[in-house]
């Protein structure tokens, strides 16, 4: 694995999930077709500039999804992939499930942002099951999204609650996709991953050298 020491600290503190969502929103190219995964990544929508022209796809069958619905705007026939009632924006389109997933596999979706249990330095993703016997396996659209979007970003905390790194040389949890992630956004920093290994892009509240040491990354 190789890495470039871009030892620049972009923030003097670890980012909150909202701050991280803003960073990701900043990096999504204007006009992209984007799928935001269930959970933390849905926050990114709140930080996309109104004039970004980003069109949100939800895999249950819609393009140009709007914000979460509140009060009278709640319509049980209109939800996101997390089954939360949402709204439609002008120019929205509905389609059935086979069409929706063809948009991913067919290479039409520019970016998807997913949560993860673990990401490997080479871009392997584990985000669907811990594999423990008591954990009922549920994959949803995670495997389809992982291999479908042109760029797959992960949004997660860099460490577990007990302090174990989630960006790892090799995933211990069952895989969702092989070599599919290109970038990992975390509270401690942003990393590029892939066939050439991991590279630190920027860090928050900690130096690249400290992060490299904690993750076992060799700075070149």
């Amino acid at each position, binding site marked *: 694995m190789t890495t470039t020491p871009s030892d620049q600290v972009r923030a003097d503190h670890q980012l909150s999930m909202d701050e991280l969502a803003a960073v990701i929103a900043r990096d999504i190219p204007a006009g992209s077709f984007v799928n935001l995964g*269930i*959970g933390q990544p849905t926050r990114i929508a709140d930080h996309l500039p109104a004039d970004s022209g980003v069109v949100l796809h*939800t*895999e*249950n*069958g*819609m393009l140009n999804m709007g914000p979460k619905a509140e009060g009278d705007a*709640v*319509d*049980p*026939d*209109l*939800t996101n992939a*997390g*089954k*939360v*009632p949402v709204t*439609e924006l002008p120019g929205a389109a*509905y*389609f*059935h*499930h*086979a069409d*929706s*997933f*063809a948009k*991913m*596999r067919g290479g039409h979706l520019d970016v998807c942002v997913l949560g993860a249990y673990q990401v490997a330095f080479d871009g392997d993703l584990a985000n669907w099951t811990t*594999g423990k016997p008591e954990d*009922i*396996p*549920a*994959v*949803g*659209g*995670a*495997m*389809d999204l992982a*291999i*479908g979007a042109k760029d797959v970003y992960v949004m997660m905390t860099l460490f577990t609650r007990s302090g174990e790194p989630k960006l790892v040389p090799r995933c211990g949890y*069952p*895989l*969702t*996709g*092989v070599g599919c992630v290109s970038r990992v956004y975390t509270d401690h920093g942003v990393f590029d991953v892939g066939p050439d290994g991991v590279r630190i892009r920027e860090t928050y509240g900690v130096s690249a050298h400290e992060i490299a040491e904690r993750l076992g990354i060799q700075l070149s």
Partner: protein
Amino acid sequence: MSRAEILESTDAAVAGIEDESTILVGGFGLAGMPFDLIDALIRQGAKDLTIVSNNAGNGDVGLAALLAAGRVRKVLCSFPRQADSWVFDGLYRAGKIELEVVPQGNLAERMRAAGAGIGAFYCPTAVGTPLAEGKEEREIDGRKYLLEYPIKGDYALIGAHIADALGNLVYRKTARNFGPVMATAATTTIVQVDEVVEPGKLDPEAVVTPSIYVDRIVQVEARHYTVQGAR
């Protein structure tokens, strides 16, 4: 298939469903779930069913009620575990129900293949994961794919918005989800709708499911629920 029948009751609509049938059940969570057809199926009594649906029931209504009635032997779905999937969770942990987890896009495409007469297809989803186990892998133009087979139903139970009397269907918003695909993939497709209109009242350009795929239609009072604990 001959033209669709308009039935007076949900009980008539589900008549004849045999034990051990494979039933495709529409809906994503509770959007598009054919609640009334499922309630009728519970009254009808068919058992040892295999259910193909995106989820494995939410709350205590629809598919969850069918599971709670003990009529389901196996579920093929993409996402059984949810905040309100307590009925399935209990049956699964007690070893009373079989589960086959299928990636959501493969679930849809395998039914699409069944409805379109495709014998099997190569798909890149799940390569290198535990869900690739037992599947043929092939490299085509430098990319790895898995061989996936169609999923065909004996029956499909789906919810749509409006039907015309010939069986053409339109849906509402994301309640469309699996309906149009399932309608093509079952021997007998049974649809509950909020309204039946005369032929000519639906814009032909807007019809989503053409009548050729539809066998039985019943009009019911619209019932809607939202998933509890969704986030």
